[in-house]
């Protein structure tokens, strides 16, 4: 990998992400100042206690799981624009597969960044357009006929993605896939914590791959 390009990606990425952090924190601060309405600290603390222990943990895990997958530029972008599991990671993965480049290679870095940047722009524009047309779109989006389509967006996305990846790496897929299927069958309530289970799946997948690699099965 071209280290000069990568080093600059880190440099620019840090500037962008720290600016984003500043802007993000400025939003509630600006609202408080404009409306002269600072909230009670206890209300914020109580609200945070309900979500922070889980989501801060997930955030730390996500950095270590998705960081290597998305590459440098892709990570700095995806961790600002969000929706990593349902849009950015599948977009990067599919783009690298289609382009025939390896994740972690210089070409992989280019393709992954292009995919994540494109999906960020398109997502932002679709949402902006949707917000502008929300009154017209609300009956369509809320239509009971369309509800099953949006309820099933993840299976619809991962079915197509999985068939490509699993068919090429079926030996590697077997252990994490079986583990996850059995786990969700036994403990269905875990579906709300799938974010935490991604790194679990990655660890199991890595352990199985290491064993198979050492035994020359792959």
């Amino acid at each position, binding site marked *: 990998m071209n280290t000069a390009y990568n080093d600059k990606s880190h440099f620019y990425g840090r500037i962008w992400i720290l600016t984003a952090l500043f802007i993000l924190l400025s939003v509630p601060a600006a609202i408080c100042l404009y409306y002269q309405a600072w909230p009670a600290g206890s209300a914020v603390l109580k*609200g945070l206690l309900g979500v922070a222990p889980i989501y801060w943990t997930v955030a730390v895990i996500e950095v270590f799981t998705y960081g290597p997958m998305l590459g440098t530029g892709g990570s700095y972008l995806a961790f600002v624009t969000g929706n990593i599991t349902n849009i950015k990671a599948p977009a990067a993965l599919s783009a690298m597969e289609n382009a025939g480049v390896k994740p972690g290679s210089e070409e992989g870095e280019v393709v992954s960044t292009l995919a994540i940047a494109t999906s960020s722009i398109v997502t932002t524009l679709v949402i902006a357009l949707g917000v502008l047309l*929300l009154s017209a779109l609300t009956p369509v989006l809320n239509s009971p006929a369309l509800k099953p389509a949006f309820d099933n967006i993840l*299976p619809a996305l991962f079915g197509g993605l999985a068939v490509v*990846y699993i068919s090429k790496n079926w030996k590697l897929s077997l252990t994490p896939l079986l583990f996850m299927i059995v786990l969700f069958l036994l403990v269905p309530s875990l579906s709300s914590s799938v974010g935490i289970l991604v790194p679990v799946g990655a660890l199991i*997948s890595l352990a199985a791959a290491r064993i198979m690699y050492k035994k020359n099965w792959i």
Partner: protein
Amino acid sequence: MNFNPNSSFLFILAALVIVFVVAQSVFFLVRAYRHGIAIGMERAKLQKTVLSTAVFTIAPAVSILLGILTLSKFLGIPLPWIRLSVVGAITYELPAATSTAQALGLSLSDTITDPKAYTAIAWVMTLGIIPGMIIIPLCLKKIQGGIMKIKNKDSKWGDLFMTSLFLGMISAFLGMVFTDVRSGLQGWIPIFVLLFSALMMGICGILIKVCKMKWLETYALAISMILAMIFATIITPVIIG
């Protein structure tokens, strides 16, 4: 000052945030594209990546709109718009709003009118989601250094390492699809949708390889996803009755 969760001020704030997000994305897009050309990658391949990703992204992006719609009944449009355009995901934003609303004794079914409650929710939504933005600048380079060490030591294992990470992610989401199978035929709908999507992708693969429909590569994932979503709208009423 009267508080309106759909005020012009809040919409202006949202617009500023959106402009920033698009600017960052354009910056990285242009930089990656130029670097791709500089290292000898084909222009057509790079353009195809942009086009296929753009097409693929539309349906999931519309599903995010549904998230904004859900939250807008309680919080108005601008705050959910900001939160779901920067870092956020509906899986976080809804619990964050709910948690704070419960702490304040508010109902999510009524539009918020108390500015202090609104700002409390805005702070919780923001503070709960920022650790990733702090950890990435601190740790990403070190994480990648570790990956490079693995690759330099044994390149085959390095490739397997990356593939295994992706497979771990895919497995978690595939496993999740099996969550409700014990609730009867209705619980099998996500599995049918997943299998249909896989079948459509398989057919696309055959058309690309056997029928030489190379152009389909760009749209295969988007097509299989959209067809599977349409399939879900057809089988759900049939199964549920």
